[in-house]
């Protein structure tokens, strides 16, 4: 555990900077994209919100890719190939994961129906 902490501290210690693009519109697109992506070494933080060195490197690489003409989705796929799907802050709506998205909705409606009928039966009593 202490070793892992040292590893992450190593990533945080050095202060290398972001290199914003001179094209404001492209930079804006990049910033919006960073908010949809997760920092691979900071649990729950967006790529845009992380000050870790790794996140800075990834942001600068994404900026380069966008300025070379890559679309946002292509840039995400580029990162996905390297960091896996965990680079997306929200999991893709596909395959078995659909269940995770749909189940809470089903549970909510089932509970609503349950409460309504229960309340009616109490009034009936």
């Amino acid at each position, binding site marked *: 555990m202490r*070793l*892992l902490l*040292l*590893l*992450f*501290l*190593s*990533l945080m*210690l*050095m202060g*290398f900077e972001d290199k914003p693009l001179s094209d404001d519109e492209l930079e804006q697109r990049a910033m919006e994209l960073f908010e949809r992506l997760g920092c*691979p*070494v900071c*649990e729950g933080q967006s790529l845009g919100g992380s000050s870790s*060195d*790794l996140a*800075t*490197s*990834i942001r*600068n*690489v994404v900026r*380069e890719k966008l300025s070379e003409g890559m679309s946002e989705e292509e840039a995400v796929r580029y990162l996905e*190939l*390297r*960091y*896996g799907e*965990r680079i997306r802050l929200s999991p893709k709506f596909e395959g078995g*994961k659909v*269940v*995770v998205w749909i*189940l*809470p909705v*089903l*549970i909510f409606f*089932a*509970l609503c*129906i*349950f409460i309504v*009928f*229960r309340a*009616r*039966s109490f009034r*009936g009593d």
Partner: protein
Amino acid sequence: MMSERGVRWLLGVVIVLLVIFFVILGFSLWGRDEGRLRESEWLGKLGPSFEVENLYEGKDLVRFGGGEDLVLLNFFASWCVPCRAEHELLGEIDISVTGIAWKDKRLDAQKFLEETGNPYDFVGFDEEGRVSVLWGILGIPESYIVDREGIVRYHKVGPITPTLLEEEIEPLIERLKAEG
């Protein structure tokens, strides 16, 4: 009006759905943490080749990849404390070792290797972290073993330890050498 039996049935459905939901959620969060630290997406795949500046020879770009030889690719930095712990062991590895100085200052990295000894056959200088992102590194030190076909056969986040060297790395290298 729903019958008492119907209400009980509905409650049962809700409980079952809740259980399924939390089981799936638990498994996905568990797998997430494990994968975050241990697995490289390149494991078992053709590792990406790259061009990188030589740490000692200015801006000359040197190409890595193509898989002519077995290579241990090691990301390090002079400011990284765990990198010092594994440094000596890298010299004991019996294959070509390529080091990539990650987000370091050129002189600091050179001084670090001067002080601690240079176990690398080649040292690349990745000041901006481009090569590191290309390989999807999660922390340093981080090491990969790439076979003669260019396939990534081993990945380790964190320092190489004597136990790891003896139990995992050396047997793998022997096996890969025997494969030819």
